[in-house]
C-alpha cells in the first residue's frame, strides 16, 4: 500500500495534464503557454499534455484579470477538474489584475474565487517560467498525495457539485 502511494506520487509529478482557461486575457500569456509546447521549449519532456477537457486535467492554468463574465465559468471549470488538482495563475493579471486594477468590468484577482497554488508573474511571463510554474504545481500535487489528510480533502472537493462549491465561496 505504501509502495503504491509512492508510485502514485511519482506518477503525479511526472504526468501533469493541463487545462488552459482564459478569463479575459489579452492573449499575450495564452500564446506563451502554447509556446511552451513548441519544439524550442518542449514541455512534453516533463509529461505535460494540454488537454481539451477539464475532466482530464490535473492542473488548471488560468490567464487574464478575471472579468465579471468569466467568474461563473472559472467556478464551473474548477469544479469540473477532478481531484487532486492544482491551479496555476499565469501572468500578472490573475495575480493582481495588473494595469486593469479598479476597472468596473473586473472581479479579480483570481484568488478571490479559487485557491491558487502557483503564481507565474510577468506580462507576459516567458515560456520557461510557465514550465517552471507547472513543474512546481506538479510537485505540489505529488506532496498532496503523500499526505493522506490533504488527499482526502482534495478528493472531497470535486465530488461535490459545482453549485455547492459556489455556495461555499460567495
Amino acid at each position: 500500500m505504501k509502495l503504491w502511494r509512492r508510485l502514485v506520487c511519482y506518477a503525479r509529478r511526472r504526468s501533469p495534464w493541463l487545462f488552459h482557461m482564459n478569463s479575459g486575457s489579452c492573449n499575450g500569456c495564452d500564446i506563451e503557454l502554447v509556446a511552451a509546447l513548441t519544439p524550442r521549449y518542449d514541455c512534453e519532456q516533463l509529461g505535460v499534455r494540454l488537454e481539451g477537457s477539464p475532466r482530464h486535467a490535473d492542473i488548471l492554468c488560468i490567464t487574464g484579470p478575471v472579468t465579471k463574465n468569466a467568474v461563473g465559468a472559472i467556478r464551473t471549470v474548477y469544479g469540473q477538474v477532478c481531484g487532486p488538482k492544482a491551479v496555476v495563475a499565469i501572468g500578472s493579471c490573475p495575480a493582481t489584475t495588473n494595469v486593469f486594477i479598479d476597472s468596473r468590468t473586473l472581479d479579480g484577482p483570481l484568488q478571490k474565487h479559487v485557491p491558487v497554488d502557483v503564481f507565474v508573474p510577468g506580462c507576459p511571463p516567458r515560456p520557461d517560467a510557465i514550465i517552471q510554474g507547472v513543474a512546481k504545481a506538479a510537485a505540489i500535487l505529488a506532496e498532496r498525495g503523500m499526505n493522506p489528510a490533504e488527499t482526502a480533502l482534495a478528493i472531497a472537493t470535486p465530488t461535490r457539485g459545482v453549485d455547492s462549491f459556489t455556495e461555499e465561496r460567495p
Partner: protein
Amino acid sequence: MNLITALARLLIFPGLLFAIPAAWFFLWVERKSVALMQGRVGPPFMQPFFDFVKLLSKTTPPRSGIAGALMRSWPLIALAAAAGAVGLLPVLPSSGGFEGDLILLLALLELPSMCIIAAGFSSRSIFGEIGSAREAALSVSYNIVFLLAILSIAASQHTFRLDALAALPSSPLRLLGILAIIVCLPAKLHLNPFSLPNAEQEIYAGPMTEYAGPELAMWELSHGLEWVAATGLVATLLAPHLGAWWLAALVFIALSFAIVLLLSAVAAATARLAIDTSVRFYWQCTLIFAVLAISSALFMRYRL
C-alpha cells in the same frame, strides 16, 4: 489445444502480460516518433505507464442511475474486447479452438469503436455526441474497405482461419489486401488524417470529454491494446511462416513495431481532414482498390 495452453495464450503471450506493456510501448513510440519528427525531444520512456497510474489515482465525478452505470461499463467492455482480440492473434505456430478465427477477431476489433460511439452518446455532452456521430460516419466508411480487404484475402486462400492464412505463402493479391488494411488503420486508431472523432480545438476530446480518472485510464489502455491488435493483425498476415516459436514471436514484434513507426510518420506528416473529405477518401478512392481485390479474388477462386 488444452485449457492451460489456451489460458497461457490469453494471459501471457500474446495475451495480457505481453499486450499491456506492448500497448504502453506502442503509445510511447507513437508520441516519441511524432515528437522527433517535429524536432522535439518528446516524452520519457515510462510516460504512458505514469499517465495510467496517475489516472487510476484520480477521482471521478459522481454518476448515478442507468446512464452512470452505462458510462462506467463502456470502457471496461472496450478493454475486454481489445484484450480478447490481442489474445486471438495466432503468433505462435500450433493452434486450435477459437484461436485465429478471423470473424471473431474482426468482431472484437470493431467492439471498441462501437463502445466509443455509445460512450459519447451516453455521456450526454454535446461534444461527445458530435464526436460519436463523426466516429459513426467514419466507421461506416472505413469498415467497408477494411472488411472487403480481409474478405479478399480470405476468399483467395479459401479459409477464414488466420493461422491458416499466416501459414500460406503470400501472393500479390494478398499484398494488395494488406495495403488496403493499412490504409484503414489510421481511421481505426484515430490517427491524424482521420482524427476527427477526438479532434482537439474543435470538440474538446470528442466522446471522451466527460470521462475522468480510472475510466479514462481504461480508455487509454484499450486504445493501446487496439494498437497492438490492429498492428498485430497486419504483422501476422505479413510475417513469413517460421518453425521456431521464438523466431516467430521476434518477427511478429519487429513487424508490429515497423507498422507503428509507419503510422506515426503518416500522423506527424499530415493534417486533420474534414469529415466529408475523409468519407469521400474511403468511398471514392480506396473502395475501388478493395472492390478490385475482392473481385479478382473471387475470379481466381472460380477459375482454379
